[in-house]
């Protein structure tokens, strides 16, 4: 137990502003606070990988590292769309996932928010065009379910994701 506690104490709270990245950290704090203020309670998100290369998921994972600490602040990733306020969807939506994505969307209680993630999911930029609709994919998420907010990037950074989540809750 001692080495664990020692490590925890030595690490301190990394979500505090570090000198060189202070702006980013303050921005993360601000975004988090605003999201929670608008929602007025914990925000629950169901992430759906509907065709991604997995790098978008790596950045979504990063939202839970101690720097961004999303779950620690009351924005939770949940296992079922039935418990979700928001779907965070990566693409390009494959034909083989089209059905599952529609079911997840239908299972999410209204009023629901959908955030399309990544150039593939948004169908934008060079990468979005490379992974546009073909025999195996429907392309952008909005080709399959209604989308409220798009977060482009290949992959989008954790900060961009946070901004996208905020933009989505602001639409309500």
């Amino acid at each position, binding site marked *: 137990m001692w080495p664990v506690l020692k490590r925890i104490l030595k*690490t301190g709270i990394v979500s505090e502003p570090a000198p060189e990245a202070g702006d980013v950290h303050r921005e993360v704090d601000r975004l988090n606070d605003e999201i929670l203020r608008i929602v007025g309670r914990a925000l629950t998100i169901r992430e759906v990988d509907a065709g991604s290369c997995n790098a978008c998921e790596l950045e979504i*994972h990063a939202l839970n590292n101690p*720097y961004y600490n999303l779950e620690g602040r009351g924005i939770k990733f949940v296992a*079922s769309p039935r418990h979700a306020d928001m779907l965070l969807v990566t693409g390009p939506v494959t034909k*083989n996932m*089209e059905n*599952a994505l529609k079911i997840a969307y239908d299972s999410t209680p209204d009023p629901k928010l959908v955030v399309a993630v990544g150039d593939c999911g948004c169908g934008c930029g060079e990468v979005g065009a490379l992974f546009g609709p*073909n025999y195996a994919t429907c392309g952008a998420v909005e080709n399959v379910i209604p989308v409220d907010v798009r977060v482009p990037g290949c992959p989008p950074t954790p900060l961009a994701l946070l901004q996208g989540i905020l933009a989505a809750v602001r639409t309500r």
Partner: protein
Amino acid sequence: MRFHAEPIDFERQPGVGAPLWRGRAADGEDLLRFAISVHRHDGRLCALWGSDERSNGHGFRVHAIFALDEGWQYLTLDLPADDPVYPDLSGVFAAANRMQRATFDLVGIRHDGEDQRPWLRHGGWPADWFPLRHDAGDSPAHENRPTDYEFVKVGGEGAHEIPVGPIHAGIIEPGHFRFTVVGERVLRLEQRLGYLHKGTERRLAGADFSTGAKLVGRVSGDSTCAFAWAFAGAVEAACGVEPSPRALHLRALLLERERVANHLGDLGMLGNDAAFGFGLSQFFRLKEDWVRLNAQVFGHRFLMDRIVPGGVAVDADAAGLAAIAGQAETIEREVRELQRIYDEHAGLQDRFLTLGPIDAALVRELSLSGMAARATGLLLDARCHRHGYAPPAPWGTLAVRPASDERGDVAARVAVRFAEVYESLRLIRLLAAGLPGGELRVEVAPVPGAAGVGVIEGWRGEVIVGVQLGADGRIARCHPHDPSWQAWPALEHAVLRDIVPDFPLINKSFNLSYSGQDI
């Protein structure tokens, strides 16, 4: 050159890439006999795909890549345009099964064995339409209705099935797992994959090199460096181009940074799945520091599009290299401290030890490569010297030491990841201390009709890319192969005897790619 007295003449692929020999099988019998001979010598089936050659005045073609001690053997077999059938290799190499089924789904050439179930086609396109045929045209109008899949039924008293997926509980790629259990014990696991099939190989047909590099670099986002290097290596071998020593060393630096990033993330996740959240936050903090330096020095957190045909798209200046060397020191100190905590944590060790075991015999049977293979004691690593094998540049001079652990369980895969982090950090320091000179990127002029193969030891295992150029010098056919093709069936074996609640931890210890195998 001939291998084991088999009557096929092979020629060494030119260039600086992995040692690879190319040959043609005269008929199906030749291919089958060669496969049997490779199997008898403890070799592996590394990749298998098909191509449509009718516009070149041929029929269809099967491509298979095998591995023996000295390197890789790339064998092709021409098939007639009508009724293209080749011998089922799955009786020799179990790994052939899914690759053969995918080959039919995409190209419409058939093996002559039993299991003709579709693999990548779930109902999104008609069964008699093959996307990789040159005359396929646009996909026909078709109602996308998921087809039933015939899972193997397991009977017996008290046996019941638990279907999981395609959407899983966490933030994770989709796939379907069908468990047959008695009580909580797993009798059988059958996977159904292909949910992420996005027609990447069809997108590659007709692409130029820079588009090809972008597409192949996105086959599996966590392995973008490995795929981009394998693609670049294939194109360079085809066109007779050799990147400069500086470019090769920078590629190695990028690849090792990718390996460390993934191991750090997985070591955190493994702690978390064994109810040790401390591990997750510590390792995720280190990983975030790591990818931030990637962005600072190389301009992308996961290093996408940094390795390109002809060399690399980025350089590192003295300040960048100093930051890299300094970070390697800090991270090593921290990871060693965390490893001590993991090693001494009774709860963690209790979960890791003896869980999800595979052994070297199974690894051979399934043609597994990479980290999970090394965790059964096999010293397979394309970067490392071993008896009869000389690694390609720049690995030879770096003298990479393969990690190894003979236990084959989750604990072994954790130990191998720790060892590989340390070895990669050593390599990174070595590379950062002295990059040789040379051009960052040399021009690659397409050679119409040429073909090449690239093999790279990614963090999961062997990443292979085969490229064929058309008469116009653009990509006619490109097949990117992820090592997860071979490793997914190993996971089916690893969970036997354990209980369903242990599955997430066993699964995470492999952390296989869905997108990489579904392409």
